[in-house]
């Protein structure tokens, strides 16, 4: 058979190409710049992210809605574009959060931005992957740099431990996932998700081998999104890693895992909801409950936010659990709910981490008690932190409230008793979560300042910009939730 090169749509691939070019430039420039000029690197990286955003906007405005390449293995549609924009936005905010951190801590700069961009490239590719091989390659491209970023504080034993735990469990998860993928390939003879989806409805129904394969793949991604009981790495990794990296892991890397799950479940495995429906249901209920209950008794704020982000992953798993029930009645709204929650979660969680970084610049501590009386000497930070925390808790009129509304609407659209039960578990958990989120607010507003040290906190400009962007999104979306009204055609993946 002669080789025929695939026809590529370079407009659709432009964001990936620009990102690749910029990360190569960052790595090369790092070689030739002397120490006093290393700050240029973060500017190059930020400029690259903005440049990669341009083709995404032009693609969104173009008339062609779906651009499919390589026999449907790589698809650029509205869903992919929204998530690519999200990943680039998250990358930009993380960049703003890390510039001063990396510079002041005297860590390697060029390599840091290079790895950050590589990881982002993996996520951008992941948004378009509709093929098992592409999903695997994208997953590793986004994970391997993240393993290294987690251990960036080389002399710190906690950071070492964070890196190794993340690495070992991440690799174990991808091995389990690959085993499942090999079985799926063996049974269906293809790796393209659309073709797999056709066979799932037909001759792959009720096959024990396929059931096993789906379970393996979902378990693999459950590690990635830190769903209970596969979450054991997350708190230690989040606490030990440098804080900007923790923000990156808890938002971008987790979203990457959810994007892969969305594509696998809605395009590939939708016909087998008898397997993944109950599985996601159990994962979601366990993840919400365990995450919230353990978060209640944390004394370190990063660790608390780690468990909080585990619990948030539980909320995001709820729409997955109900998507296939009742003959897929709620599939469309479940899909939209997941994407909306991912977008809102990114803004509010990054914001909370930006405050943690700002406060730690003065207190050098992650203990919750060090937030005592924050309102007295840094009222702006205290108010913003409360906004982010109450948004995470889902208090109106903040963005987090609408994200939860979307989830509960998906629950009602599904309409089965199991879906409603899961909705009740989610509602109870939102109440539990309010306890630990508001305990920090109480610490900031009511409690005295430890040691009476009231010197104000100097927040560098990049960090202020990061706070501004995230706070603006949380408040604007909260007051004007119609922003999401245009996302109706997002659910193009839903069968």
């Amino acid at each position, binding site marked *: 058979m002669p080789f025929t090169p695939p026809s590529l749509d370079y407009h659709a691939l432009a964001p990936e190409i620009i990102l690749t070019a910029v990360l190569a430039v960052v790595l090369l420039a790092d070689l030739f710049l002397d120490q006093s000029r290393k700050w240029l690197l973060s500017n190059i990286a930020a400029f690259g992210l903005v440049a990669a955003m341009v083709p995404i906007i032009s693609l969104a405005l173009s008339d062609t809605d779906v651009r499919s390449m390589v026999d449907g293995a790589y698809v650029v549609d509205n869903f992919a574009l929204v998530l690519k924009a999200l990943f680039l936005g998250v990358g930009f905010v993380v960049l703003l959060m890390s510039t001063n951190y990396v510079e002041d801590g005297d860590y390697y700069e060029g390599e840091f931005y290079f790895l950050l961009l590589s990881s982002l490239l993996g996520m951008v590719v992941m948004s378009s992957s509709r093929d098992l091989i592409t999903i695997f390659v994208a997953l590793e491209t986004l994970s391997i740099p993240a393993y290294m970023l987690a251990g960036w504080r080389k002399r710190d034993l906690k950071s070492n431990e964070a890196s190794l735990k993340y690495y070992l469990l991440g690799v174990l998860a991808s*091995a389990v996932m690959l085993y499942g993928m*090999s079985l799926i390939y*063996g049974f269906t003879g293809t790796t393209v998700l659309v073709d797999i989806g056709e066979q799932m409805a037909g001759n792959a129904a009720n096959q024990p081998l396929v059931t096993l394969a789906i379970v393996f793949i979902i378990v693999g991604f459950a590690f990635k999104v830190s769903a209970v009981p596969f979450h054991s790495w997350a708190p230690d990794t989040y606490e030990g890693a440098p804080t900007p990296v923790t923000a990156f892991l808890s938002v971008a890397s987790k979203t990457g895992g959810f994007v892969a799950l969305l594509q696998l479940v809605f395009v590939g495995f939708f016909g087998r909801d008898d397997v993944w429906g109950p599985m996601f249901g159990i994962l979601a209920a366990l993840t919400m409950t365990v995450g919230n209950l353990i978060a209640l008794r944390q004394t370190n704020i990063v660790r608390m936010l780690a468990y909080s982000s585990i619990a948030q992953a539980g909320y995001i798993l709820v729409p997955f659990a109900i998507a296939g029930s009742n003959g897929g009645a709620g599939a469309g709204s479940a899909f939209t709910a997941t994407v909306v929650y991912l977008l809102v979660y990114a803004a509010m969680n990054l914001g909370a981490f930006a405050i943690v970084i700002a406060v730690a610049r003065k207190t050098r501590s992650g203990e919750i008690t060090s937030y005592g009386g924050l309102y007295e000497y840094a009222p702006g930070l205290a108010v913003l932190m409360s906004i982010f925390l109450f948004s995470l808790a889902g208090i109106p009129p903040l963005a987090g409230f609408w994200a939860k509304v979307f989830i509960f609407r998906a629950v009602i659209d599904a309409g089965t008793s199991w879906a409603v039960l899961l909705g009740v578990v989610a509602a109870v958990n939102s109440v539990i979560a309010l306890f630990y989120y508001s305990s920090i607010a109480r610490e900031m507003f009511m409690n005295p300042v430890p040691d009476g040290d009231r010197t104000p906190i100097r927040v560098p400009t990049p960090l202020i910009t990061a706070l501004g962007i995230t706070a603006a999104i949380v408040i604007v979306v909260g007051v004007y939730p119609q922003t999401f009204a245009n996302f109706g055609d997002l659910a193009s993946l839903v069968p």
Partner: protein
Amino acid sequence: MYLNQFLLLAAIIFCLGVYGVLARKNAVLVLMSIELMLNAVNINLIAFGAFRNNVIGQVFSLFVIAIAAAEVGVGLAIVLLIFRNRADIDLDELAQMKG
């Protein structure tokens, strides 16, 4: 072609790998166990590819081999980093954080 033997071999190797990851305390041995799991996947992919007479399985396994190499490179670097800081790579000793 006898597909079952290959699948059985792969399943056994995969289980050995999982056992190694769970039971071993030495970080390097855990890395080797993960390699076993990935190679079980390769056997699966190549056996299925030969059985179905299409090339996707072999292509997939090439990707797995290449990425596994990159992964182990990073893993060994992390283990080396820890060895430099503590002169020990026992995973059970690695418990700075709890809770």
